[in-house]
């Protein structure tokens, strides 16, 4: 069963291949995503992050807020400052953590409900579990940064997460935290990891860092990294399984 809902202004889908009524679990998973949006959206003046940024917050930060900040701060250290969760003026920008973190948490609702074979796609950030059918691995297409008419490649993943960062769709929104300038040394960065929090944060960090970010991502727990450099050359590192060509499928 497939469910799609727009959360955080981004279309998100849950594709559950197990039998049984998956609607209640999918609804709980979307609930997790909506709750994260309410707490962390900078577009909502009443969100915790907006209140914190406005200096209006008197209460203690929530456990979720502290967890997200901790993930971001750890990535900031591990990426040597290229990944940041604070802007130069000191306000929070947690978007680089929230989507992956929230999607990973949403997937736990599916796990808790006993589902084993599913794919959760949060606006291009992907979590897969089990198999789409017949025991085969999930095949995750990686959008090409080069051409609107092509996939870069397709990866086979059994249990894990895939995230891709690039400037091709939302413009130059990723800034190298070390310089404050838009990252330009790569066209795209894809990270495969056990969990989406890691994959998402490191796709962004590698995109900001350039190729030198690849070993840092692997050291931080990425299974594999696939980047397209500014010259259009794909470079891969770590463990990646490429899907067989279509003609052989």
């Amino acid at each position, binding site marked *: 069963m497939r469910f799609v809902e727009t959360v955080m202004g981004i*279309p998100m889908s849950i594709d559950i291949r197990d039998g049984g009524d998956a609607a209640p679990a999918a609804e709980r998973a979307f609930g997790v995503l909506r709750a994260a949006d309410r707490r962390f959206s900078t577009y909502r003046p009443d969100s915790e992050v907006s209140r914190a940024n406005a200096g209006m917050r008197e209460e203690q930060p929530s456990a979720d807020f502290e967890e997200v900040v901790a993930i971001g701060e750890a990535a900031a250290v591990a990426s040597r400052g290229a990944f940041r969760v604070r802007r130069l003026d000191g306000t929070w920008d947690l978007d680089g953590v929230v989507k992956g973190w929230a999607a990973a948490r949403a997937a736990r609702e599916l796990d808790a409900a006993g589902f084993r074979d599913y*794919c959760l796609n949060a606006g291009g950030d992907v979590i897969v579990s089990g198999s789409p059918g017949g025991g085969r691995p999930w095949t995750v*297409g990686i959008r090409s940064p080069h*051409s609107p008419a092509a996939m870069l490649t397709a990866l086979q993943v059994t249990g894990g997460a*895939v995230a891709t960062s690039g400037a091709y769709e939302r413009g130059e929104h990723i800034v190298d935290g070390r310089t404050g300038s838009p990252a330009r040394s790569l066209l795209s960065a894809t990270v495969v990891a056990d969990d989406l929090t890691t994959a998402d944060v490191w796709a962004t960090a590698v995109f900001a860092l350039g190729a030198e970010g690849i070993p840092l991502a692997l050291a931080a727990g990425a299974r594999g990294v696939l980047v397209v450099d500014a010259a259009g*050359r794909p470079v891969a590192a770590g463990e990646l399984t490429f899907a067989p060509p279509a003609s052989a*499928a």
Partner: protein
Amino acid sequence: MNSKSWRGTILFTVILVVMGATVGLKLYGVGEQVTAAPAASTSTSSGATGSSPSPSATASSGDTSSAGSSPSSTPTPSPSSSASASATKVVTGTAVDTRYGPVQVKVTFSGTTITAVDTVQAPNGNGRDQEINQQALPILQQEVLSAQSANIDTVSGATYTSEGYIQSVQSAIDQR
């Protein structure tokens, strides 16, 4: 010892240029995917760029926002032979709202096979939207078509418009 060091070591032994790329990857027009080698075991497998001219190849730019007219718009396989298997049918999917506006597609089936996906409606408010369309929608067309044979289950990296597009296609399939 921590994983850091051996990871690093692996990295340097393992970094591969996946495709001899420069050539293959001027990619415009070359079309669809991909790489290779059912990667044996660990580490990366380097791949060749397969790249077969995509069926809808030049979908790109030019005409994003409006109907039809993409090169592949004609379904074709003449209503030939046994009616049942190859009957051509065109179904318009529902319009799906995305952050940038509604996305709607028209899917052409030949029997149970999708032979074309045309964009009926796509966001076209401002330059930014157009840019997004040109980038995101055509590739998704490719995705849907190649998913027929490559069994791509999902896509990483297309944030805003992909699901709307896929959802509209799905609705067309459901209505068929």
